[in-house]
């Protein structure tokens, strides 16, 4: 490991035009990086993955399979967004029925206290890396039920360890969801070291 980290291409914030197609990444660079990762896996220390990050992130961001998880009104917009007119599939977001195949949890709809433990369990069942988008006022703060309801959880971030993107609205329009997915893709492109924490 003497040659130091591979030079990272700068990632511009606008995601649409700078993502290189995988063919553009020189094969030997990729190969070298993968080998380095393999070498480091058992040991400790920081894994420097350089340009492979770019490739992995590119793959991840374009196959964000989401869990078909609709609890309330926002779930209908989820359905309409995934269907004919808005078609989330264009962004690689395809719905999955089981959490074990999903990368992304879009909490579409009110979470009640009776439901809270189930959400936690669903989240635990999802494989890493996993992302959460809190959709709608209900899962951000409790929304219209904030003040007067006795059984609504006041925000999904009280029960899940992290929420990546918040999309406000009651319900958000499908355009806003698409914006949310795009923002998540931006975030993913900024991930380093496969998202592993530095030692």
């Amino acid at each position: 490991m003497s040659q130091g980290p591979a030079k990272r291409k700068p990632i511009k914030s606008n995601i649409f035009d700078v993502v290189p197609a995988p063919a553009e990444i020189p094969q030997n660079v990729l190969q070298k990086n993968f080998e380095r990762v393999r070498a480091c896996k058992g040991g400790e220390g920081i894994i420097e993955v350089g340009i492979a990050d770019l490739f992995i992130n590119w793959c991840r961001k374009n196959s964000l399979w989401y869990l078909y998880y609709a609890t309330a009104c926002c779930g209908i917009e989820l359905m309409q967004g995934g269907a004919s007119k808005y078609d989330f599939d264009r962004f690689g977001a395809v719905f999955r029925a089981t959490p074990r195949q999903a990368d992304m949890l879009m909490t579409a709809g009110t979470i009640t206290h009776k439901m809270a433990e189930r959400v936690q369990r669903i989240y635990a069942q999802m494989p890493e890396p996993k992302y959460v988008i809190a959709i709608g006022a209900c899962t951000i703060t409790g929304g219209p039920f904030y003040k007067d309801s006795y059984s609504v959880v006041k925000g999904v971030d009280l029960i899940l360890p992290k929420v990546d993107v918040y999309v406000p609205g009651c319900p958000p329009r499908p355009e806003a969801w698409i914006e949310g997915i795009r923002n998540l893709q931006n975030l993913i492109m900024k991930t380093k070291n496969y998202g592993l924490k530095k030692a």
Partner: protein
Amino acid sequence: MKTLSAQEIFEKLKGKFGDGVVSLQTESVNPPFAVVPPGSIQEVCRFLKEDPDLLFDYLVCISGVDHKDKFAVAYHVYSTEHRHRIGVKAMLPHDNPVIPTVDVVWKAAIYLERETYDLMGIVFEGSCDPNRILLPDDWEGHPLRKDYIYPEQYHGIKI
């Protein structure tokens, strides 16, 4: 088909039960309520359902009402045959709200009574399914009561 007015229905009830039926409440109430003592609710309902002139075969709604010093249970019934309707009401004491079930008369009462028990805390004696339905089993209190105080937290999550 012969649609009866609330007054006529009440007269029929009065004819059958005499003083068992207390009064007819019509003022600014739609539909009018026949107020009956809680003990005779089953017989009254069975009569309403089976009498050929009344034939109230459709139980529309059961609602519990908290009047602070007493509870009321309101039954709305409808006849698909004669197309008339009436309400039946029973008043219960506040410290011990217990009333016989009517799920032996209309099966529709099962869920309506479970809901009323869950949210209002009125006990339906002899019910075939006397459990909570909407709230978790370990929830404390009955939220639709006027003196209900919102809990601080549930299973460690802030409310």
